[in-house]
């Protein structure tokens, strides 16, 4: 008994002593870039791809586990494993691995966009460029589109492939009000008339940040420059003052008098589902559908957008980490997930209901039909309304700046 006790720590010490040696060569990063699609498929067969992704949505999880997983096995002979982990924790893990020189990691596929992508790319945590090797991306997507060549102002340069497209919408309980506000001013009026019935998630939350950006879009006089010119604090500072002014003006009439803010979208949803507040919001125009069906949101839930300033939309992407042990399998999985079939099922309400970044002009009649037939549900606004209000994202570098400022100017006041 005592012998076996010393065994484990004994190994520990030996290993600690001899820990300096690191595998010096990267797995196959250079070779992967030379491979043709046929060769990639051959390499991928029989391998396992491990996708790390946020796991807090049942619908999304089921889409991956019940739909994607078996079909990926069938079509490419690639095994699929989904690992739930928050994106920032994934980035953190990769960063430590990079620093410790671990060339053989465990992650093959990440789902992300915006500031996470910016950080991952700047810290060289990603494999690529690889999108040129993905046939479905080349065939079905407008590869020149600004939506895909830039991600929150960061050039993607082939390091990520678009997987989905979402737009920011608000939800309201139509049993509590007839006409939802259509501009920031009307929203302010409504909040004044209905004290305690509105709030937004704190900065730092994905949705809260997006709400603050909407206010910025509406209040700044230099929106076009903000969208087009590179990151510069001079451009945003003046508009930001207006933003804090607006947010502080509505604060006394917010939920709990603005004393605190929900720290996440989930908390906001909880307040809405309990009827404590009458509006919620989110970065996916179709997300209310499932929540209504599950009885979490009231059945009278409907969506609206602010026509003024509009509705920010963005794409989210798939990437491969620098130390993925199965890059070829990851590429096969990406190719599959970008296919019209996978995209149309993703759009249907059965699992997820999320919009597709696919270019419809590239589809044949049968493929296009499949998309057209999908009923997105009553809580989803029609595509024309969404398209008309569409606004692109600003540079990702503004996001942390706005977060910091919000804490100083709004939360701690």
């Amino acid at each position, binding site marked *: 008994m005592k012998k076996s006790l010393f065994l484990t720590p004994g190994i520990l010490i030996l290993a600690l002593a001899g820990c300096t040696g690191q595998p010096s060569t990267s797995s196959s990063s250079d070779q992967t870039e030379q491979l043709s699609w046929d060769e990639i498929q051959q390499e991928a067969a029989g391998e396992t791809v491990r996708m790390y992704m946020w796991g807090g949505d049942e619908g999304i999880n089921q889409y991956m586990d019940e739909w994607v997983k078996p079909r990926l096995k069938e079509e490419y002979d690639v095994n699929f494993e989904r690992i739930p982990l*928050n994106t*920032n924790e994934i980035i*953190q893990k990769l960063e430590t691995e990079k620093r410790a020189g671990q060339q053989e990691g465990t992650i093959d596929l990440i789902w992300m966009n915006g500031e996470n992508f910016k950080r991952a790319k700047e810290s060289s945590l990603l494999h690529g460029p690889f999108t040129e090797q993905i046939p479905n991306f080349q065939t079905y997507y407008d590869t020149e589109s600004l939506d895909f060549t830039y991600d929150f102002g960061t050039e993607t340069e082939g390091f990520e492939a678009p997987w989905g497209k979402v737009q920011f919408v608000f939800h309201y309980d139509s049993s509590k009000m007839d006409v939802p506000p259509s501009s920031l001013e009307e929203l302010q009026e409504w909040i004044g008339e209905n004290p305690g019935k509105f709030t937004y998630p704190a900065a730092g939350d994905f949705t809260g940040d997006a709400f603050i950006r909407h206010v910025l879009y509406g209040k700044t006089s230099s929106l076009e420059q903000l969208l087009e010119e590179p990151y510069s604090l001079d451009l945003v500072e003046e508009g930001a003052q207006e933003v804090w002014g607006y947010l502080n003006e509505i604060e006394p009439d917010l939920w709990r008098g603005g004393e*605190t803010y929900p*720290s996440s979208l989930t908390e906001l949803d909880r307040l809405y589902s309990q009827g404590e507040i009458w509006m919620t919001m989110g970065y996916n125009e179709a997300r209310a559908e499932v929540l209504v069906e599950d009885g979490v949101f009231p059945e009278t839930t409907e969506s609206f957008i602010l026509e003024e300033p509009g509705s920010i939309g963005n794409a989210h992407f798939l990437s491969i980490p620098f130390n993925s042990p199965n890059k070829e399998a990851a590429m096969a999985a990406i190719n599959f997930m970008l296919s019209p079939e996978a995209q149309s099922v993703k759009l249907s309400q059965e699992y997820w209901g999320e919009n597709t970044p696919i270019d419809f002009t590239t589809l044949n009649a049968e493929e296009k039909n499949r998309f057209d037939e999908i009923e997105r549900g009553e809580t989803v606004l029609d595509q024309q309304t969404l398209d008309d209000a569409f606004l692109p994202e600003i540079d990702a570098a503004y996001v942390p700046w706005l977060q910091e400022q919000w*804490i100083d100017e709004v939360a*701690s006041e």
Partner: protein
Amino acid sequence: MKWHLNKQTTLLLVPAFLFLLLVLYSLVMSFVESVKGPDGWTLSYYQSLFEEERLYASFGYSLWITLISTALSIVIGWALVRSFHTFIENSLGKWILWIPMLFPHFVWGYFVLLLLGQSGVLSSVLFNLGWLESRSEFPVLVQDREGAGIIITYLWKEIPFVVLMLLPVYTQLPKQYGEVIQVLGGTKKEYFKTIEWPWVQPVIVEVFLIVTAFIFTAYEVPALLGVQFPQMTAVLAYDWFYGISWDERSFAFALLFMISVVMSLFALLSFLMLNRRRWLISKSQHQR
């Protein structure tokens, strides 16, 4: 009395030393990360850390929550043990006390949110009974600036812990001592001063230190039940740690490392003082 480690004792202690080696090595690695800037070694993160106003607000807030939670847990837990210890041990009651220990802190935090939120179960029940006109009459117990929700959660979880730590001390308290005092005509107060307090004091101090350190450095409960401002230091460190910018990440390392050092030194000093006393007590016992 042997003063040097003999062979057998050394052998017994090998795993403990290995364990310490693991912890120490990891701490050094964390420290290295906190002084590694983009261009070589730097202490600048420690410097600019002290210029962050958010940090000061959060320190004060954390200390307040930590001390009040710890103090109340110990006082209440201690009182419970004193009044009930005669029959808790070896009974069903002990198992009931274990129940909250079964649930991780974040699960219990979620439960408090479910029960005591303004839209929570309790508020809803009171409304249905007609005791509340609207939910805004229900006191704000979670996500409040004073940290009531956080304190409630910690009390709920820590009181059983205190009870379970103190229980063996009381069941082992020799009954003869009490009888001696009684025979000699001593009062309850004297009994407490001369027998009970010296007997339990080391454990109380130890529990105090453990609970303080835990509450000060844990982030799950305050992240779930706290407000946006002020934040507990651990939440701030977490936000920085998983934040977007490189500087913040290094801030987090610096902050976490500093907390580790301060906490450890504090604990070390307290224990050393305690051990000295303990040693004196045990010496006097040997002389008997």
